[in-house]
């Protein structure tokens, strides 16, 4: 057993696990944060997307020991003080989910995408940004709409702050 220490959603957390334990299982089973999902075993669906040191990654294809020492944000870390993150609010507003299984990964992917290319997203760049995320329900249309709306709202917020 190896001790893994992570900063998760702003808190330092540790746990013991085998070297072969996947980060997603560590997060769900050791830390009890079950918002991050597992939808495949081929690294293709994106239900497990979290942020590691500020970048979106598939937590089903990283070992917990590989991540030790890093800073992690999961879906549970987005909403502040009972208020939804603008991307979460936009998914709700624009009906960007049906069963909700892919949603944590979609939202974490969208937050990363807006962080990198925010303010200049188009339907085409949003669809390209979702290449690593699969949704069996929505047909993507409302997910794209929600992300574009969140991008516009967050860009407005940034401008107002300047």
């Amino acid at each position: 057993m190896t001790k893994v220490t992570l900063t998760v959603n702003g808190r330092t957390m540790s746990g013991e696990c085998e070297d072969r334990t996947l980060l997603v299982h560590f997060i769900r089973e050791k830390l009890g944060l079950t918002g991050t999902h597992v939808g495949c075993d081929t690294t293709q669906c994106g239900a497990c997307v979290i942020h590691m040191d500020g970048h979106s990654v598939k937590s089903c294809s990283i070992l917990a020991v590989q991540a030790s020492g890093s800073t992690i944000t999961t879906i549970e870390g987005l909403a502040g003080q009972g208020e939804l993150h603008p991307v979460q609010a936009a998914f709700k507003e624009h009906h960007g989910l049906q069963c909700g299984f892919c949603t944590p990964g979609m939202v974490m992917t969208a937050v990363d995408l807006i962080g990198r290319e925010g303010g200049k997203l188009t339907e085409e760049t949003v669809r390209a940004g979702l290449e690593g995320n699969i949704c069996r329900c929505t047909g993507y249309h409302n997910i794209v709409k929600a992300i574009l709306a969140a991008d516009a709202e967050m860009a407005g917020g940034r401008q107002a702050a300047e």
Partner: protein
Amino acid sequence: MYATSYHRASSVEDAVKLKSANEEGKYLSGGMTLISTMKQRLAAPSDLIDLRHIPAIRGIRIEGRKVTIGAATPHADVAASRELAAICPAICKLAGHIGDPHVRHMGTIGGSIANNDPAADYPAGLLGLGATIVTDRRSISADDFFTGLFETALEEGEMVTSVTFEAPEKAGYAKFNNPASRFAMTGVFVASTAGGVRAAVTGAGSSGVFRHPGFEQALASNWSPDALNNVAVDPSNLMSDLHANAEYRANLVKVMAKRAVASAG
């Protein structure tokens, strides 16, 4: 996944030492191929030697027109490098279309070329650029490095530390994605370099990435998509699988080559 032991290497020397002490071990870079394969129980290394925390093999260095990319540099960093895009935009574009954003945040150039998947993008880029692969013990030209399906010139325990190349006069890459996996069903990289015109094809050859002398000769005398109209692509050495048969791939090779030339300008 079978049990394994994890080691985090702090330097190239440390990594090579750990590897030689653990014969059944493997280097671990982004893990986007290796961890996936271990999950399927198709690989079961006794030990994993993590290269992601060795600062010396991470990052892009540009001196004049000489480019050096550290082995542990993620695809996303190559895709986003403004300095590199200023002298060789084709390699940035290639990196920016590997897999998806999350795969690009973890997957690295060293892991990609060491793995030498016959449908991977970087092998075409490096063979097309006439790059040199630098390891812990020697330098290997791309022409000698990629030796077959998932086969390279790397010896037991040998570790890629960087790749280097001279920025070409112009270069272009065009890829026809497999829509499910995003790997190349065919990808062609063309470059006009100091050493002549080079054209490398991935995703199609039945023994992995290869150069196409017919394209190279035609482009050397006339750098334009139309110069390739009458160049034949022989399907007999191309792959046939459930995604595409050899004849279909032969046509794709030509179409992608023309698009690559067009994108190079």
